[in-house]
């Protein structure tokens, strides 16, 4: 999709440990496979540069999980441009994003650089209108 995406997916993960807490109020589970600083920085930059990012199983053209597909349908329905990242293509990214977001499952939706939620939250927010508000706010920034 973009060079930023390619860089993130290809970022090597050699370092272990040294992970700092990122999400406010999140309970951090210690895993044996910490997200390396290079990958973390790539994700930081990617979610900053792209206003809406969906970390998903498969791609928006070919989702490989019903929950990821649901989020793609919602975002497409709202006519919002978004970047898709296939976490199945990179095991380090897949494990790392669980830690980065303090969230155990996929899809993971980022809006304006912030973790917004998984599938249930996205569906709920789509229905109650708060997703639209959040997207509009991010687009105006």
């Amino acid at each position, binding site marked *: 999709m973009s060079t930023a995406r390619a860089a993130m997916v290809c970022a090597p993960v050699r370092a272990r440990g040294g992970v700092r807490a990122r999400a406010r109020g999140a309970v951090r589970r210690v895993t044996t496979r910490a997200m390396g600083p290079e990958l973390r920085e790539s994700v930081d930059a990617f979610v900053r540069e792209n206003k809406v990012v969906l970390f998903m199983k498969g791609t928006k053209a070919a989702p490989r999980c019903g929950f990821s597909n649901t989020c793609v349908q919602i975002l497409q329905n709202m006519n919002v441009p978004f970047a898709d990242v296939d976490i199945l293509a990179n095991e380090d990214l897949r494990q790392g994003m669980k830690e980065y977001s303090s969230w155990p499952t996929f899809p993971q939706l980022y809006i304006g650089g912030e973790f917004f939620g998984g599938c249930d939250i996205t569906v*709920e927010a789509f229905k109650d209108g708060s997703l639209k508000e959040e997207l509009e706010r991010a687009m105006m920034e």
Partner: protein
Amino acid sequence: MSSVEEIERLLTDALAPTELDVVDVSASCGSAFDVSIVSAKFTGVGRLQRHRMVHEALGDVMSRVHAMKIDAKAP
């Protein structure tokens, strides 16, 4: 694999729900569940954090199952 009973016990212990409905939606394979929970502990807590409280209560169950649909509300 996990069971409805295990999930109910973990959520009951951690969150003292006033309403709790756990359904195995994987044809009783123990790999996908729908959880609907109402707890006073969610009062004043945002949507994201309510889900995180459920994830935390479920611990390793989250990594063992394929899917966990969560509806977490305050009374």
